[in-house]
């Protein structure tokens, strides 16, 4: 049983809160992804789980045990580092065997000759050899067992790092952006490898990334963080379809969700600049009270056509099977993130190769069936009482 439970975990680095009152529960055999922009505290949280960093306050439980007071080696967790952290002076085999050797370590292993022999004996024992062989086979590393890390490619190194974690057969696997050093192609295949590992080995996985594709494809559950605070905790689908705030909404999905400044006016509906749209069914309950809102629409649910918001094409990017068209709206304003969008651009994904030219006037049609509303402050605005749409 390796459910993980965090209770008000806080970490303060010289006055700065890298993790702020984080609480959540992860069931046994879940694949939790910690997602968030750089510096949001993902690594810090993971390192606290591993025991590489002490918690400032709060508690961490794994199964029935409270672990935050234990040293790393007593927590029975495996950690896969972003930088692999392979031992460069050991062969792949020794790298993989190392945790097993450490398990049987005696002080006299430090003695020059005797220690070397003892280690070799452990390495050569039938049980260990068998385990290593199986692990290597799973990871397709059999050929390379006697090579040194420097002679391996990035993907192979990554697999060695995984192997080192696997042989220990721990309850909990912790991984800190293990794929971020790989090129796109390798990344795709390693992603599949890790998912397979999770299926086969079992155990609870906690996986840090800032890549939303990884988060969406790998996680059974995602904790999306920002500035040390968990913004939303849920399944990938919940996070995509039902974002808790504008930050989550814009962080997930490429191109990001468009946020258009709008106003609910009772009787009239949703006013965007000089256009008025009816409130869709799942939002209708909000129509009773006038207020300023942000309308969140995914680029895939917008089309270019007649009778929509007027605008001009600002940029066309062709991405294989589809094109991303940026349109500068004429009358409506957008509220994109702090990083300085121009203030009236929306992005629309159109299928195929678009022949639109920059500056060409177009009209944008919105499909509000999956649209969401936010307060101007960024918090999600939910229709009360009604059951969840999407």
């Amino acid at each position, binding site marked *: 049983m390796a459910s993980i439970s965090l209770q008000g975990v806080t970490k303060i680095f010289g006055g700065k809160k890298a993790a702020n009152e984080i609480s959540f529960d992860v069931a046994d055999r879940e694949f939790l992804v910690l997602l968030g922009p750089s510096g949001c505290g993902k690594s810090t949280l993971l390192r606290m789980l591993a*025991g590489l*960093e*002490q918690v400032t306050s709060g508690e961490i439980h794994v199964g029935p045990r409270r672990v935050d007071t234990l040293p790393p080696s007593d927590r029975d967790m495996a950690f896969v580092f972003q930088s692999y952290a392979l031992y460069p002076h050991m062969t792949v085999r020794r790298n993989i065997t190392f945790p097993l050797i450490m398990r049987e370590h005696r002080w006299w292993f430090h003695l020059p000759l005797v220690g070397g022999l003892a280690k070799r004996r452990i390495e050569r024992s039938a049980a260990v050899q068998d385990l290593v062989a199986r692990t290597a086979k799973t990871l397709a590393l059999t050929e390379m067992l006697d090579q040194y890390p420097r002679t391996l490619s990035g993907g192979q190194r990554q697999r060695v790092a995984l192997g080192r974690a696997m042989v220990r057969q721990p309850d909990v696997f912790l991984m800190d952006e293990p794929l971020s050093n790989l090129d796109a192609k390798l990344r795709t295949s390693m992603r599949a490898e890790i998912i397979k590992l999770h299926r086969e080995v079992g155990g609870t996985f906690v996986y840090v990334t800032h890549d939303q594709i990884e988060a969406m494809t790998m996680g059974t559950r995602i904790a999306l963080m920002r500035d040390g605070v968990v913004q939303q905790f849920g399944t990938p689908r919940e996070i995509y379809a039902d974002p808790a705030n504008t930050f989550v909404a814009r962080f997930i999905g490429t191109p990001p969700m468009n946020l258009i400044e709008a106003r609910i006016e009772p009787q009239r509906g949703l006013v965007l600049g000089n256009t008025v749209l009816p409130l869709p069914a799942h939002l209708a309950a909000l129509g009773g009270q006038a207020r300023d809102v942000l309308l969140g629409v995914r680029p895939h649910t917008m089309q270019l056509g007649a009778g929509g918001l007027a605008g001009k094409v600002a940029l066309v990017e062709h991405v294989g099977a589809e094109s991303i068209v940026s349109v500068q709206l004429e009358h409506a304003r957008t509220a994109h993130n702090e990083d300085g969008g121009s203030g009236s651009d929306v992005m629309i994904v159109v299928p195929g190769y678009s022949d639109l030219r920059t500056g060409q006037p177009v009209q944008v049609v919105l499909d509000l069936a999956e649209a969401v509303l936010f307060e101007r402050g960024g918090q999600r605005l939910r229709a009360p009482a009604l059951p969840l749409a999407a």
Partner: protein
Amino acid sequence: MQATSKAARPLAPRQPGRDWTPYWFAAPVAIYLLLFQGYPLAQELYLSFTSTSLLSPDQHTYVGLQNYVDLVTQDEFRHVLLITAVYTVVCVVLAIGLGLGAALLLDAPFRGRGLARALVTIPWAAPPVAVALIFIWIYNGQYGVFNHLLAVFGWKGGMESWLDSPALALPAVLLTTVWQIFPFASVVILAALQGVSSELREVAIIDGADRLSVFRAVVWPTIQPSVALLSLFLTIWSLRRFDLIWLMTQGGPIGSTNTLVIELYRRAFVYRDLGQGAAVGMVGLSIALVITVFYFRYNQRAERAKGQR
């Protein structure tokens, strides 16, 4: 007990907490240095306030600051300081200059580079006692090869007896010292040069920089910290260099190579006055300390200026 020892076990490397590891890791050396350096140093400090004979170091007469007052009031000692300063500065400057030149020469690829790198460091490997002996012979006024080599290169000065001339002895000793220590400088700088980014070098070339500009814009800033620390070490070591000078000139002629350590040695062992020797040693130590403090100050300021945290 068991529990505490567990908790005290090293955890996160960045988080020592109640971790005793650093203390017991450092303890052997700390004890060692205290015994073999700290305690003698303290004793020397005490001796510098006494009048003590080499022959009976355990019978000392406390004389207060007398030894220091003697030093300060002697013109001769000021001369010693001057010689020490000249010796140290020239040593460091020339060793770094030559070392840098050698390192730059040996950094670029050419056939036989490995061998050249090894051969250039021969002087570093040569024992000072042997170096002193051969250089005494090389500098010999009558039979020394140095005069002959100079003549080959067009020197008109005739046969000089280098180590016996008050004007030439210091240059001769300096030349020997630099010859002996420049390889160390070149090894250190060569190592630092490995850190020079080839991309930066290339980008500077594309920006239109000539060789010297590339050096100043790319190479020098990279190796500068190493060179600074190297200078500090060479300075400290030059301040305390003994065997080479003593064997070559014993500080003469007419005090022209009389550095602090030579003076220390003479007072303590030739005049058999440990108190005075210790006082000279303390003056030297203070100078080295001041230089070191300045180095770290400067270093800190430079780093802060560059925006390093």
